[in-house]
């Protein structure tokens, strides 16, 4: 159990490529933070730097009170769960879990007790004498978790631990990991490219893009107040609609020939006008005209894909089995509209 504080940490490869731009943040004791972003955004590199599997080019990393930049991975008091589990194939489940403890000079009695406790927690009792090859994907995932838990580390590191599992198992494990982490109260960093995992598991989300942290915030902050068009379009399924528009600074945004009312007096110039598909409603008339294209049925609701003034737009409408005309009228509530700078994509 520990806090993590990172000061201006960065990673530059010998060939000059900068994988992680200087970043500073701190993680509170017992907090679970999720690093999310598209592949190649540097989230795994950042995690591996914390683990000690990648060198830190510059900056300072503290776990607890200790600067650990130059400390061996085995001595950072961390435990990591890998995407492909990385179990030792020649060892039984029990030995896989015990290996880290054995090397830290834990007594045999203590090791047995801890392994049994972890196995109990993860429902692995019946498999302690099996080899990883005799286990299913979900069970291997649990063993990898067990190997991290028995160590009782200051910090858990998860590197896309669920991406090799099927969808159903993934949802189940997501909840289990979260519950377990809460129960143990261990600080955790969790890397994923899946924004649903990020939203559901995180105390705070770090959204990364091209080696930079775009935004840090609670899931609700990220969802309600995305800091940039990148965050807005990355988080949320379906993503936020973004319309290219021009504002006149007096509460009016021009999208093509259409005029949409926005919060007055803010900004004049090129903007991206953002609105979540679920905050748009279909009205009887008098709203923004919307040319309907494809309809995706989701069961409880349906996604209406189409165009507003020639620009792609999606509406998440309740599924009431009503027939829909080719052109609909939409209500875009002013309070739900987000404005982003037309050039930089930053929130206005």
């Amino acid at each position, binding site marked *: 159990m520990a806090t993590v504080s990172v000061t201006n940490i960065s990673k530059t490869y010998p060939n000059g490529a900068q994988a992680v731009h200087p970043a500073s943040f701190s993680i509170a004791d017992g907090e679970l933070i999720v690093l999310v972003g598209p592949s190649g955004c540097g989230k795994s590199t950042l995690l591996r730097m914390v*683990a*000690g*599997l990648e060198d830190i080019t510059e900056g300072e990393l503290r776990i607890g009170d200790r600067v650990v930049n130059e400390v*061996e*991975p*085995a*001595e950072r008091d*961390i*435990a*990591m769960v*890998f*995407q*492909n589990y*990385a*179990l*030792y*194939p*020649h060892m039984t489940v029990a030995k896989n879990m015990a*290996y*880290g403890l054995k*090397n830290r000079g834990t007594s045999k009695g203590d090791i047995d007790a801890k392994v049994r406790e972890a196995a109990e927690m993860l429902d692995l009792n019946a498999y302690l004498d099996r*080899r*990883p*090859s005799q286990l299913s994907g979900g069970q291997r995932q649990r063993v990898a978790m067990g*190997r991290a838990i028995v160590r009782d580390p200051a910090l858990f590191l998860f590197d896309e631990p669920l991406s090799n599992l099927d969808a159903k198992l993934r949802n189940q494990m997501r909840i289990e990991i979260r519950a377990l982490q809460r129960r143990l109260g261990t600080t955790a960093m969790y890397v994923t490219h899946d924004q649903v995992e990020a939203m559901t598991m995180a105390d705070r989300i770090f959204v990364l893009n091209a080696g930079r942290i775009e935004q840090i915030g609670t899931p609700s902050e990220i969802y309600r107040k995305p800091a940039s068009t990148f965050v807005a379009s990355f988080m949320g399924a379906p993503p936020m609609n973004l319309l290219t528009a021009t504002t006149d600074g007096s509460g009016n945004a021009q999208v093509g020939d259409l005029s949409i009312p926005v919060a007055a007096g803010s900004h004049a110039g090129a903007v991206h006008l953002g609105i979540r598909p679920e905050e748009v409603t279909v009205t009887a008339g008098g709203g923004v005209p919307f040319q309907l294209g494809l309809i995706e049925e989701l069961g409880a609701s349906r996604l209406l894909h189409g165009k507003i003034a020639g620009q792609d737009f999606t509406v998440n409408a309740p599924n009431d089995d009503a027939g829909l005309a080719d052109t609909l009228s939409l209500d875009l509530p002013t309070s739900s509209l987000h404005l982003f700078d037309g050039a930089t994509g930053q929130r206005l």
Partner: protein
Amino acid sequence: MKRAGFRTISLPMLLLLPQLVIIGIFFYWPAGWAIQSSFYLQDPFGFGSTYVGAENYTRLAGSSEYRKVAWFTLIYTALVTFLSLGIALLLAVKADKVIRGAKTYRTLLMWVYAVAPPVAGFLGLMFFDQNVGPITEFLAGLGWDFKLGVNSFDTATAMVMVAVWKQIPVNFIFFLSGLQSIPRSVREAAMIDNKSGTQRFWDITFPLLAPTAFFLLIINITYALFDTFGVVDTLIKGEPGNNPITLVYMVFRDGFRGGDLGGSSAQSVVLMVLVLILTIFQFRLLERRIHYT
């Protein structure tokens, strides 16, 4: 799964024929001949032979020279196998860590593989030459008066060194590819679990290399027993005299130099049985070869 089969026996036989003919001519026929002639005493000039029963074998069993050669072969095989595997493993582990210029480094290490055994022996001759050999000079500097072909211990040392040198690249290639097939994340997980690199090697890396090592062990034993003939022959310059020789070389010497075809046949039959045992052992191992997936 349904297996496709032939309706008649003639077509599969026809398809197998070339292989069967080759095995028949080059293996069963000579092997049969060897077994047969091991029960005869051959006239050295080829004028005839006399049936002597198991005499060739009993003579072999009673021969102190045969026992001496067998003993030397055993030690030689053990040394060559152990050293070539050990050194190759060490080199592979080091090469695996090289990042810059890795390809050049590996190619250089594999080069020796292309050298034929007699050529290797000849290179050995030059290295160990009494007057100009750099290794002889080096050893002289250490106070070792190295005499290839005169002192039997020195000759044996040279034989082991050349044979090992020749075999290292093969082992190296296998060990290196074995090392590279170990998932990176498994090694990283081990780095988090254990701070000692040496311990990690013995606890994680080596067990995962075991299938490769088993396979190489058999290959190397076979190599040391049989394929080092060229090395032995060149290093002792075809003059066995008081020099140490291996069992295979003794078959050659007694049969083709000494003209004792019967005795030499008996020796090859013994070797054949040895190979058979080794092969069975190898198949058993390969069958049970541990697959960790």
